[in-house]
């Protein structure tokens, strides 16, 4: 059953036409698709590594740098609290940044490939 096109379930789930496997292989090898894949990976992979490293830095500092984290900045607000709030801030910023990037760079490229493949099928 390796190259059957759609999964064999019956049903009334409306689905657009499924191009044959050869078509997918052809598109996957195309320069246009390679460009889309690069555009996604170039952004998502380094950013994932970066936010996990930033988060782990926070975890490790909490564990092993108590003095630094306990340093009071103003009133009872210490470095640990500000660092924690900074994790919230970076999460919001990365989400916003990715969405902007995806709308500008990924969506037009994937739309173009999708509409051509579905028109051909």
């Amino acid at each position, binding site marked *: *059953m*390796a*190259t059957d096109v759609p999964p*064999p*379930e*019956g*049903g*009334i*789930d409306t*689905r*657009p*036409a499924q191009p044959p*496997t*050869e078509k*997918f*292989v052809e598109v*996957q090898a195309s320069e246009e*698709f390679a460009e*889309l*894949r690069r555009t*996604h*990976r170039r952004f*998502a992979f380094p*950013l*994932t590594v970066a*936010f996990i490293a930033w*988060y*782990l830095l*926070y*975890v*490790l500092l*909490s*564990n*092993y740098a*108590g003095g630094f*984290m*306990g340093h*009071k900045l103003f*009133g*009872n*607000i*210490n470095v*640990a*609290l500000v660092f*924690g*709030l900074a994790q*919230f801030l970076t*999460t*919001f910023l990365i*989400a916003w940044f*990715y*969405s902007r990037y995806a709308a500008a760079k*990924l969506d037009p490229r*994937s*739309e173009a*490939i*999708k509409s051509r*493949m*579905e028109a051909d*099928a």
Partner: protein
Amino acid sequence: MSAPYAHLQLAATPTSEHRPLIIALFSVFVVATLVITVWAGRQTKSAADFYAGGRQFTAFQNGLAVSGDYMSAASFLGIAGAIALFGYDGFLYSIGFLVAWLVALLLVAEPLRNSGRYTMGDVLAYRMRQRPVRTAAGTSTIVVSIFYLLAQMAGAGVLVSLLLGITSDAGKVLIVALVGVLMIVYVTIGGMKGTTWVQMVKAVLLIAGTVLITFLILLKFNFNLSDLLGTAAKNSGKGSAFLEPGLKYGKTGTSKLDFISLGIALVLGTAGLPHILIRFYTVPTAKAARKSVNWAIGIIGAFYLMTIVLGFGAAALLKPGDIIASNPAGNTAAPLAALEIGGGSGSNGGAILLAVISAVAFATILAVVAGLTLASSSSFAHDIYANVIRKGKATEQEEVRAARWATVFIGAVAIVLGAFARDLNVAGLVALAFAVAASANLPTILYSLFWKRFTTQGALWSIYGGLTTAVVLVLFSPVVSGNPKTSMFKGVDFHWFPLENPGLISIPVGFLLGLIGSLLSKEEPDAGKYAELEVKSLTGVGAH
């Protein structure tokens, strides 16, 4: 084992006089959600309706529902309680739970929406030999969901009976049974559509209730966070250490390692939780899935920010002894803070706020158990029944019927486990669910989507290897035995694994086994299937 119950009488005191109000609010919620369920059930006809709510929800609606699915009793009551008792260390949970969403946003949500149909198994098995990988995906979905479900049910029994002031064992069993029956009704009748609406209603209630209490606490401190923190630190008896990391996890080298393990499990677990992943099928496109993650990050982030005020507020307003006396894990700190901020025990304001927060907690538990039950019964029906047992020849009606029966079965299992396992360590179970999801599911999801050489053998080694390692390590950890105060089984000690959370070991094992299993595989990866999956996941060609 009797410790949590010895104090129930104490906690019931402020509650019992207002029980009619609490019961009235619970009833309003139950009736309203049942009406929604019946209405949703009338519109549930096809398999896509039952599994994916007809894929007609908007990004905002799904973002709300995702938040409702994710913010469990553990995050609402557990985090507020952990902050109230351990100060800053409780806040660390919030951060891990939130940052985790970036993994889902950047790597998982959109490709999953583009290439899958109803379950996590759709994506895991896409390139692989269907039957073995679907069996593995179904197994890990059900294991993760049952652990998560068990934690919610155990929490529900203790918590709701506490809030209602029910102290007899029979009464508690009755409450667990009630929660189980309601959840079976929501899922069998309403399917994904009904469950989604229940989760949306719950998210709105939870946010509204949290905003109200946060506002009142801040008002009391003239919106001066520094004052609030100072009062909390002083009142806790621990001074400025209360505002610094280390009170809970900083004691020994082992507890510090445990903290790293927990941190990794939290951040990598979310994107492998089946009940969260299937939510992305309820929107029409990958773009809508992305937007719903953004809404969820905004809503969940705002909520976790408020838990800081809630937790430190409880520490500032209440005596630490009272929080522990009411529930040793601090689970009732938020409701007690609501009672106090409304005017204290015996006042009308306090009674109303306590009733509101209790009803919100009840709604939270119900919505989360419904989502978990739906995820496991969907996976049973779609992955195991339709594709393994019936080899893809089941009709849509047969599949949905199997899902409904699976719901009744899983609901019954949850009632039995919940009734007999009320003393289990709730936090340990939730963290275990995250660790198992990160060890067994996430590696296979990522390899499937992004690694060309990944094979069926790699997927099976990774899922079963990650699952087994995580479960075995927990079995022989202090969560299960060896700790006289917090272990599930007290008085015996067969533990040899020092950490409570297995993530530090089991997550790398899951990833490594996927790698080694694929490289040692005699079978060539199916290049055609990988082309289909890769092109679909990035473009949405032929997406349902």
